[in-house]
């Protein structure tokens, strides 16, 4: 660890120091204003992130400073890591804002500090290039989440959901670690770059090595499948979402997905060359199961958070498409455009999904009051008349999640589906097979998007076409309102001008490999 490493980790350190400050001072100054300190910390982290690397996704070719900070070690200094860190800071700020008015039984300082810890964990996972650090980052997201879940509300439902999440999360961490051990045993190193080089060299082809590699792959998929709520590792989500607060449900549906997909990309798509054929098939199967089950079950729910839990499961399925594309493309040609496009569209979708979801839960928080939150779909009846602004924002988020143009969600789905259709390996034997698989995947995804529209529009329908059953307090706090306004502006902006973010995501994906390939330029003959 040199000074450079500290410089690189400045943003994370700022967030963690802020959290510590809030913990310590919170013991002496009980109050509810720690959210502002947290915001300051996040803003500081963002500034640090900006200053440390002088990195911008645009203008074109502005990535020169990164090359000078080339460091061997556990931390990857690449655009992909930056992208994830920016995303973590963005959704982290939205959640901190939403947490401005917690329930009366919640200690505000602990709540906000712990929230910051999981944001720091998410940022760390983004740049982790070593098995140990990666695991550490993942746990830095998980462990604060247990605390946050427990702190949310003092009732039994909240405790039950905390315990459920705790046990199942530990189980999944164990499975993941087990996968790591196989990977370590196979290659003898924990550095992802070295693992990649060893596997590329084909040193594992002898003896049982190949089997261990495949076991590692499946175990990693299973372990991270829990984080991204992939079927059949999704069971906890509906119960836990239902039992906790709206803020926590938002946190749970966004942060674990970010770290899960980041880790999957770093581990499977980049560090494990040679196992793609298995990997993309597993990814496709998980994608189809996940999106279908999520959407179909969401149709039945009357509890808003439970419905959104299934919706978040379904979105994990969509994002797995991009991963599968990246894996399939990796197999044929390391520098192919589709690899970057698949992963690029996944992380683009993460932003789109993250902002929309954070916005929805901020809106639900805003509609409730600290000690009585919005639970049922019926609670929302008539919100279009009683709370026109918040209801309008929820409608925008729903349209975005359903993928209606011209909102952000539409472009997210469009790039994912396009990436699936773009899989057409130029060389190799079973290309037609490959294409058929991905065509089928795209069709299933499109059908799923149609099913999903039913329950998203149901929420809109309940808000606008039914008369109120209960009075909505609308006392969720000013922070939640700010968060939802910011989200709605972002969703609309990303819908009107997604181009730069898309190309940023693609650049980030291209930075994953040591020698970034230049995509071919379309030309008419």
């Amino acid at each position, binding site marked *: 660890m040199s000074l450079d490493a500290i410089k690189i980790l400045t943003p994370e350190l700022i967030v963690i120091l802020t959290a510590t400050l809030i913990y310590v001072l919170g013991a002496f100054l009980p109050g509810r204003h720690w959210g502002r300190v947290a915001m300051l910390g996040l803003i500081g982290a963002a500034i640090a992130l900006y200053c440390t690397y002088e990195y911008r996704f645009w203008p074109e070719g502005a990535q020169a400073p990164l090359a000078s900070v080339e460091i061997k070690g556990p931390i990857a200094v690449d655009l992909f890591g930056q992208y994830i860190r920016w995303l973590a800071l963005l959704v982290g700020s939205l959640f901190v804002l939403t947490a401005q008015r917690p329930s009366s039984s919640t200690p505000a300082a602990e709540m906000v500090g712990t929230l910051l810890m999981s944001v720091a964990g998410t940022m760390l996972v983004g740049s982790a290039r070593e098995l140990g650090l990666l695991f550490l980052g993942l746990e830095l997201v998980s462990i604060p989440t247990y605390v946050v879940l427990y702190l949310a509300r003092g009732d039994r439902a909240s405790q039950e959901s905390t315990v459920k999440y705790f046990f199942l999360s530990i189980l999944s961490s164990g499975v993941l670690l087990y996968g790591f051990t196989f990977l370590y045993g196979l290659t003898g190193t924990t550095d992802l770059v070295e693992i990649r080089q060893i596997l590329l060299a084909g040193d594992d082809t002898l003896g049982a090595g190949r089997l261990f590699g495949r076991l590692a792959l499946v175990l990693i998929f299973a372990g991270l499948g829990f984080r991204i709520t992939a079927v059949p590792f999704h069971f906890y989500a509906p119960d836990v979402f239902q039992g906790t607060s709206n803020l926590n449900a938002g946190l749970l549906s966004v942060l674990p997905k970010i770290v899960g997909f980041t880790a999957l990309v770093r581990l499977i798509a980049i560090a494990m060359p040679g196992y793609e054929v298995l990997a993309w098939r597993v990814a496709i199967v998980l994608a189809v199961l996940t999106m279908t089950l999520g959407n179909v079950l969401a149709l039945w729910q009357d509890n808003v958070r439970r419905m959104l839990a299934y919706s978040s499961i379904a979105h994990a399925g969509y994002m797995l498409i991009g991963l599968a594309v990246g894996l399939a493309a990796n197999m044929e040609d390391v520098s192919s455009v589709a690899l970057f496009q698949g992963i690029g569209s996944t992380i683009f979708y993460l932003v789109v999904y993250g902002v929309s979801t954070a916005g929805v839960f901020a809106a639900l928080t805003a509609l409730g009051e600290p000690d009585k939150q919005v639970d049922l779909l019926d609670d929302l009846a008539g919100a279009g008349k009683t709370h026109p602004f918040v209801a309008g924002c929820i409608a925008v988020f729903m349209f975005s999640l359903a993928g209606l143009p011209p909102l952000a969600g539409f472009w997210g789905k*469009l790039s994912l589906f396009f990436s699936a259709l773009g899989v057409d390996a130029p060389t190799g034997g079973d290309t037609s097979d490959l294409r058929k698989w991905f065509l089928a995947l795209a069709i299933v995804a499109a059908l799923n998007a149609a099913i999903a529209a039913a329950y998203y529009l149901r929420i809109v329908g309940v808000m606008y076409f039914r008369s109120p059953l209960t009075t909505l307090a609308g006392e969720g706090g000013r922070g939640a309102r700010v968060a939802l306004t910011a989200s709605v502006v972002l969703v609309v902006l990303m819908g009107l001008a997604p181009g730069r973010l898309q190309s940023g995501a693609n650049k980030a994906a291209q930075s994953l490999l040591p020698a970034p390939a230049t*995509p071919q330029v379309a030309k008419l003959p």
Partner: protein
Amino acid sequence: MFETKSLMVLIPALPLAAAIIVGLLGRRWLKEYSHVPVVLALAGSCVFSLLLLKDISNREPDAKQVGVEVTHTLWTWAAIPAAGVTTPQIKATPNFQIDITLRADPLTCMMLPMVTFIATLVAIYAMGYMHGDPGYWRFYAYVGLFVFSMTMLVSVSNFALLYVFWEAVGVCSYLLIGFWFEKPEAAAAGKKAFLVNRVGDFGFAFGLFLIWVSFGTLNFHDAGDVQGVLGQTLLANPARYAEIITGSVALAIPLLLMVGACGKSAQFPLHVWLPDAMEGPTPVSALIHAATMVTAGVYMVTRCSPLFMLDPRAQLVVACIGGFTALLAGLIALTQTDLKRVLAYSTVSQLGYMFLALGTGSLAGIVAGMFHLFTHAFFKALLFLGAGSVMHGMHHIIDMRRFSGLRRVMPWTCLTFLIGSLALAGIVPLAGFWSKDQVLAAVHDRAHDGGPFVYLYYSAVLTAFLTAFYTARAFFMTFMGPLVVPHEVGDHAHESPPAMVFPLVVLAICSIFVGITFDHSLGDFIVRTPSLACTLVAGEHGLEHHFHWDIAAISTVVAVLGIAIAAYFYLGDRRQINALTRIMQGVRLYGLSNRKFFFDEIYHVLFVLPLKGLAALSYLIDRWLVDGLVNLCGWIPRAVGAVLRNIQTGVVQFYALAMVLGLALLIGTLLVWKVG
């Protein structure tokens, strides 16, 4: 004073800004002053459009360029790399990139001043017409949005964006037609307009898919390496079109685009929405019929001329649809008793004229179609606003049988309506005469070769006769004869306020002069549009101007004949009924009068009943077959969900077991399924 590019942005931006201001502040603060931002913005837009027109008309095409065009890219909307399809014609996989690009070329610069000018007058007019309406601010917000959509529609340089604003215009028209949504007819009319337009848009969308698949881009213009569909590279070498789109695609693309145009421009068989659209406030009708919305289809077909030129069959289909619609709508207009409805069918008919002209496939024809669009905008706006003025005076009664002789109480309305009627009938030297003459001449030129164009020519002449007849009839029934006002009005019949009369006078002056003023210059200007300037459309020689004396004579004769017969029927009729004149033979006139109603019955049997039968049949199919299928599709996911939800037990041990089982299954599959 202003740069071209800032003008291009300002023209749509002003109405949008006004719409946003009125939308946000209208209900609480602006209230009865809601018109101020919109009228100012539209007037500003109009001035900027004229400046842009001046700018573009001063540019000369250089040798390297086909036509005159200026493009201005604001930002990249979507960029999905290598998302496209690889076809034999396009080797590389293109990026799916949509730039927000505005363009200015003669075609755009012809549309923009027309749209904004008429919209400005309509907005001024509505200050009087909509005065006191509880939705006053809402009306102006919608109008601002409508004009924004329309100006964008003619300014964008990309098919995807064209589609976006095509839809936006549709949405705005839905909002405006159903403006008085408390009235069931208005709500139904808005819905009908929206749904019929969907049918057209469906075809349009498929046309765009085919264009994307064939060209690998949706841009009009060239951007970097990407050669736009209507870009300079392709237009400079039009032979490439025949290489890129071949076989049935070359026919399918224009026909699908035409389906879209039929929806938006109310052509047979999708014309049914336009007459119902009368339920909206009259200024909206004027806006929809004259400047915005219905002209979009004509604009789009003109813009895509190079695509229509590839297959003569496509041109013939366009011409036949246009000619048939013109005749059909003209026949229907003969017997309508609702003043606005007569004008609505007349719009359908005149739009048919424009498509007929476009379908000739000659440069002269396309120019004639656009010229007719241009002149029509003025006199049709005038007629609609005149009808609105009558409605305003008659307390929203618009049945021509309920009133007559209004020339005494509404002298200004009467005079301007007369000018509009004569222009529509095609009487020398008013606007309609010149453009109709060009249309007829273009069709006549094609008729030299024989074939279907001979019949189309005769039907066009017949339509001209019908046009003169029903226009005169409407005028005579409303303004001539003894003064009769509906009893609801009592003696409150009055001329409209100055805010309404002023636009009428301006439009009347325009209706007199725009035809003769722009007879040649408009054509010379728009042939420099890249889409029209390419040799594919232009042929060996450019546009020639020669006045067709024979055609002018024929069209004047049929117009005068139509007016004369109308005068004989309707003026004579009234006198006969009211004063039992000795000169007129009562029985014979009653007989003729009866025959008019007899036509109505024929229409009913010929058109209404079969359509109703078809509707009933469609309803049955829809009710039992389609609904059944849809419900089945909707039911399946729910049924699957009903089964699956049972495994969500809430027991944490089971969840853990399921996760482990899932993992075991994955590992098991991995052992059995030897891949990787």
